[in-house]
Every structure is written in C-alpha cells, then in structure tokens.
C-alpha cells in the first residue's frame, strides 16, 4: 500500500470513529441536544446505536434543513453537556427577514487554532498586526479572525462591511449606492493602512482588489492575505496572485462558513492553472461532492457536483447539508488524505447569472 493510500485509510478510520462518537454525544440523553433527541424519537430509530461509521450518516440521515436554524429557538440546539454555559450566537445569510443562527462555544477557536498551523511565519508574521476588512457584525468570522490573530501573537483592526445592505442595494439596482458604500469601506481600510503598521489582511477578493487599486499593498507592508467569501475562478485567482499580490504577498484562499469552520487550500499556481482545491477540517467537518440528482452518490473525481457539508463537533451536529455551491471533486493528497472540493462557485452558475455582490 502506498503512503497516500495508507493515510487515506487511517483518515477514514479516524473519521468513522469520530462520527460514531459525535452521534452518540448528540443522541444520548445525558449529553445530547433537545432538537436531535426529539428528532430521533420522531424518526423511530436510534442513531446513537445504529451509526457505526460515517457512511451510515450518509445512508441514514436526510439532508439537514437550514430553515431549522432560522425557525427554532437557539437553546434547542444546546447539548445537555453545555447546560449553564452561555453561548455565542452566530448568524449566516439573512438579507431580509430572520437570519439563520448557529450557537457555539469553543468550536471557532479550535478550528482557527488548527488553521494557524498551516500559515507561514514569513507571510503571516507573529507578534504584529492584522486587519480584517469584511463582514463582521453577528458573524462568527469576526471572532474567529481575531482569535487567529491572537493565536499568532497579533492584534487585529476591523473594518466592517454589511453584506446584507450591499445585497439589498444590488437587488434594488442602486449600483451607485453600492459603489459608494464599497468606497466608504475602502476609505476606512486605506486610512488604517496609512496610519498603522499592518502585515496581514483578511478580506474578500473584491475588497482586496479595490484596496490594491488605492494603495500599493507591498509598500504598505502587507506580507500575507487571507481571502475568502466569494467565487475565485482560475483566472481570477491567477490575477490576484500575479497582479494584486505581485507574487510577493502570500495569498491564502479559504472556503468556509459559520456552519463548517474553515477549509484550507492545497498548493496551487501556474503549474495547475491556479485551480484551488479546499479540504475540510476533517474529521470535524466533511465535504462531499455529490450528484445533484442523487445526492447519496459522490460524483467521479475531477467532475462537477454539488457541495454537501456534514459538521461533526460536540457543539454542533449537522448531517448532509446541501450547500448553495458546486465544485469539482478532487482526490486526497498527502497533507489532507480525504476528498477536496475545487473551483467552488455558486450552484447552477453555468446555467444562470448569479450576483454575488460588489464585496
């Protein structure tokens, strides 16, 4: 057996054991959450006993409905083991009406501490300053980035962008207002860069581009950029690396959200046409690329399919949530011996125009 095959088998075994442990946790009266305990009663089977591996989750659980996170009270998701501990409430989406909410305690710290291990000191120097320019507000991301900076001995400046407002402006065709708002955000960010010493940025691709149009980021002292939030196709990634970061600033694309945590990328560049592949922080989260019409089936490697996320932590269990994204399924590699998702874009992007916003 090759080294990689060996690693793949070990990772699978680790995932199976973790899946069993997490399902037992959420479906046991001593530790589980009211939502999942009630769910099991209605479903008429006991996951705590019947789930013996990760594949059982795929075979036995339906897709998680994210409306549950909007319609049901937060405390219904609290595992009994966390009784008495106040939780953080993180929101996702919510352009209009009630947003979806996920509760949590330490998950984001665990996820982002682990992610810190993948960052180089050259591009993300320790004991310095970061700046986040992007959605803060009720999102997990704001605390997560600050934690990530803190883990590396850094403090972080924040410039907020409210994506809900941007989406409303675009939906009502107020493009001038959207542009003015983006300029307002960039004004604040470049002011910080002018008056403070910052070595690392977290932002979205569009905001990064807009900042670079106003300020020479290399001269401003930026050494690393940690970027996510909207689609980065191959050409756009190449443009960001070659022309915005000028092959000098470390460019770290990420894929993540409030429900998953943070998927890290594997090496990319001119030799693979800047195709970015992300790997979930397995076993805490699992990304599958599935056949949209038969979602229990994976698509073949190097084939497009819909992204499905399963989150497996003691704070939150979310089986088989169908993301609003599609991606190419990629094979495991040495550092992440499980499937990856590549060239992520909005689901159905080839069939219809999808506005992701100016941010």
């Amino acid at each position: 057996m090759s080294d990689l095959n060996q690693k793949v088998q070990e990772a699978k075994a680790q995932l199976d054991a973790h899946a069993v442990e997490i399902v037992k946790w959420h479906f046991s009266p001593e530790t589980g959450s009211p939502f999942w305990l009630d769910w099991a009663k209605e479903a008429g089977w006991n996951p705590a006993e019947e789930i013996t591996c990760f594949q059982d989750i795929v075979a036995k659980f339906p897709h998680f409905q994210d409306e549950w996170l909007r319609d049901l009270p937060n405390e219904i998701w609290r595992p009994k083991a966390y009784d008495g501990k106040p939780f953080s409430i993180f929101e996702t989406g919510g352009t209009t009406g009630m947003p979806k909410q996920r509760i949590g305690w330490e998950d984001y710290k665990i996820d982002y501490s682990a992610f810190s291990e993948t960052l180089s000191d050259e591009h993300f120097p320790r004991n310095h300053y970061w700046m986040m320019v992007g959605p803060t507000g009720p999102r997990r991301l704001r605390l997560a980035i600050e934690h990530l900076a803190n883990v590396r001995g850094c403090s972080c400046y924040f410039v907020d962008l409210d994506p809900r407002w941007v989406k409303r402006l675009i939906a009502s065709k107020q493009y001038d207002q959207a542009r003015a708002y983006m300029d307002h955000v960039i004004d604040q960010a470049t002011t910080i860069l002018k008056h403070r010493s910052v070595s690392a940025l977290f932002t979205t691709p569009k905001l990064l581009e807009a900042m670079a149009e106003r300020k020479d980021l290399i001269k401003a002292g930026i050494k690393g950029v940690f970027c996510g939030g909207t689609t980065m196709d191959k050409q756009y990634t190449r443009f960001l690396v070659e022309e915005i970061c000028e092959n000098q600033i470390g460019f770290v694309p990420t894929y993540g959200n409030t429900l998953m945590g943070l998927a890290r990328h594997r090496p990319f560049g001119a030799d693979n046409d800047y195709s970015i592949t992300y790997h979930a922080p397995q076993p805490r989260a699992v990304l599958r690329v599935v056949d949209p019409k038969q979602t229990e089936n994976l698509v073949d490697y190097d084939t497009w399919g819909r992204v499905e996320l399963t989150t497996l932590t003691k704070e939150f269990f979310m089986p088989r949530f169908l993301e609003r994204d599609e991606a190419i399924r990629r094979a495991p590699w040495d550092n992440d011996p499980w499937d990856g998702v590549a060239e992520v874009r909005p689901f159905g992007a080839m069939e219809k125009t999808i506005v992701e916003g100016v941010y």
Partner: protein
Amino acid sequence: MATPHIPCLRLGDPYVSLNQIEVTDYRDGAVKATVSQVNAGVIRRDLERMDEARAALCKFSTAELIAIGAKAGEIFLNGEVQIGVDGETQSPEQYIETLSSTSGLPHVMVKRNMDKIHYALTHMDVVLNGLTRGIDPAILDAGVGEQFGTQVCFYPTSKALGLVMPSNSPAVNSLWLPAVALKTPIIMKPGRDEPWTPIRLIQSFIQAGCPKEAFGFYPTDYEGAADILNRCGRALIFGDKSTTDQYANNPAIQIHGPGWSKILIGDDEIENWRDHIDLIAGSIADNGGRSCVNASAVVVPKYGREIADALGQKLGPVKPTTVDDPEAKLSGFANPKMGEWIDGAIDADLEEAGCEEMTAKYREGDRKVVTDGGTYLRPTIVYCESFEHPLSNREFLCPYASVVEVPQAEMLNQMGESLVVTAITKDEAFQADLLASPLIERLNLGPISTMKISWDQPHEGNMFEFLYKRRSIGMAA
C-alpha cells in the same frame, strides 16, 4: 489550420487568460477560434498605464499616424496578419470565410464591409479634415497654433477611447479608426461572436508600424464592459435601446443604438413613387438590413399600401442562398434564438389591428427559414395605418421596414428621432423644416440611399470633438 487562440492584448502584449470561450460556425457549431476572456480587474490595472500608451502614440506626428493607418488599410485588405497567439496567420480570404462562418454574413457582404474599412483607413486625411473642420494636423501635434486667423488650442478629453463593440456588422469598426491618428489609445471589448475584424485591424496597425501599446483588446464580461465604458474617459457603446438607455445622459459615452432611419416622400414627389422603389428597397435591405443606416420606415402622404405592396413584390421573394453567392442578400444569425425572437415579435405585433404584412404573399413560405443549418429571416415589409402601431417605428436585425401614411405637415411631428433621413422632395419649405429639425442626424435631400454615408461628415457623433476640447489660450510674446 489548427484552431487559433486569440489572446487578450494588454498594451499590445498578448495575454492568454485561463478563461476562454469558443467562437463557432453559425451553422454546424464547429469551433473556429478560442478567445481569452479576462476579468475586469485586468482592464482596471491596464487603465492605470494609459499614459504609457498615449506616450507611445505621441512619438509620431498626426501625419505619420495617418500614413501608418493607410498602410494598415492595405494590410487589412490584402495582407497576411497574425491572428493566433501561436503565430497563426490569416489571409484576406481566410478572414472573409471565417467571419462569414461565425457571423452569418455572406462573403459578398464581408467583402463590402472590408472595402468600407479600407476606404476609411486609406482616406484618413480626408476623414480628419472633415472631423476637425480643416485644422492643420501640425496644430494637433503641438496642441496649439494659429489657423483661420485665430489662435487655437486643443487638449485631449480622455486617457483612452473605450469601445464596447457589437457582433453584427464589421464596418462599425471604422468608427474608432480616427482615434489612432488622434493619438488616443484604444481599449476594446469585441463583440462575443466577432473578434475577427478588431484583431485583424489591430494587427494590421501594428504590422504597419503603429506602436502596439496603443491597443487594448479585452474580451470580457459585463463588469469589464462597464469599466471600459465608465473609466476610459470617453467611450462608444453599441447595442439596442435597453442596453444603451442607461448611458443616455452621460456625455462621456457616445451611444450607437438603433438608427430608426427613414425615407420620406413629399407631397410634390409622391406621384413619382414608382421611380424610387429600387432606391427604397436598397435602403431597407442592403448589407442584410443589419445597419443602423438601413431604412426601417418609409413615410408617405398617400399610396402607402401600394408602395408597401411594390416593396413586398421586390423584397418578398428574396431568400437565403449560399454564403459564397455573390448575389447573396441575407445574413444568417450567429445566435439562432435571436432570429426566433425577432420572428415571434413581428408576428405578435401583427396581431394588433391597423397593420398588414405585405411580403407574406410574395414569399412563398415562412419568414424564418433554416438553410444548411443556418437560421435566416426573409425580408418583411408591413403597411401601418399610422405611427400609433407598434410595428411602425421598429428596427430589427434583418431587412424590415414599415410603410406609414402620414400627411406631410405631420411627418416631422410623428416620425421621432432618426439617424438618417432621405427626403425625396423638392419642396423648399419642407426642406427648410427638415434642415431645422433636431431629430435628424444625417439628412439626404433627394433620392439618395440611406446607406450612403460621408466619411468626412460623421453621421453619428464627431470623434474629434469627442476626444478633444478647444481651450482658450493666451501666450506671452
């Protein structure tokens, strides 16, 4: 020849994008080229370098650039130019065949468009003389000088000329050609299905000695197109009303939308209408009816039904032939859905009372036909009782016109804006009204085809006045 890849040009340097599209034969879908598609950021970065591009052009005098343009015209018409990133070249015959196969234009029309472009390039001195109203080119080089007994001084209004080009008619490229002699770099988004003419022109210019930095060729998306329009300083956009309306009040953007060109016959000439049927039919149908200078309405004080019937007899039988037929009159649709949409739109509006199609009985068959895999629309003439009818003042990408009966005294009140009006009348009072009308961009007095244009008198915007402004100047002795 292997399928060429047409790269983006960034200040003249080829750039192969990781995003590419295919340009295909309108009949069988065979891939004729792949074309690099760049993200808007690439354009925005390059716009920061327009001073370099202009400086490269300013090393030449206007007279030298006119001479380079004339040489480029010869190369464009007769030469072999590089077309692909791997050194693939293209002969004039290959240009005609390839453009025909992706645009649907028959060879004879491509050749006619080529000739127009060649004429514009080889007569740029005449064109500039007309645009500048006789300003000495040396004054343009210096920016200041004395002419007509007065001091004149000009300054450029923009760092570049942005162009968002259409796919439907190669000769529209002649509109931007004066910009090169006027030392203004070009930032162009070519039409989705027509990269051929722009890239052949640009390469002809470069081969003729024009600095490559003058040319930005950026196949791109909507965001890129919007940046070209909004960030160059001056730009031209081509498209239908829904596309161009959003720029209607922007003086930095020159709109080339529908022409709604017309032929008017006065009371004094209406009894002679039969003498003008060939001229009217040619104005409607030449160049496949695709130009903004094609007549789309014939406005007459009487005999409307008879005139429409005569045009129907003449144009109704016209049908698609082969692309290499020297007598071919119709163009195929690069996008068959466009043909289907137009066909459906005409039929839907014919349902409304007050209108009758006059070509149908002479056509023997449907308006929309599919021949050798290509979709075509055969000529359509409708008689409308008044301008109230929705088909009375419409323009479609095919030989189409309405014939509308309106009293002469009401014609100018009812006809709306028109790019070209040919007025067949000797009535001096009517001519005076026409000359005074702000609704007409180009006026032909007498039986002149609407298709006839004058290179030294722009019918739609003056490129010199668009790219330069006169400034008052005082200079110490």
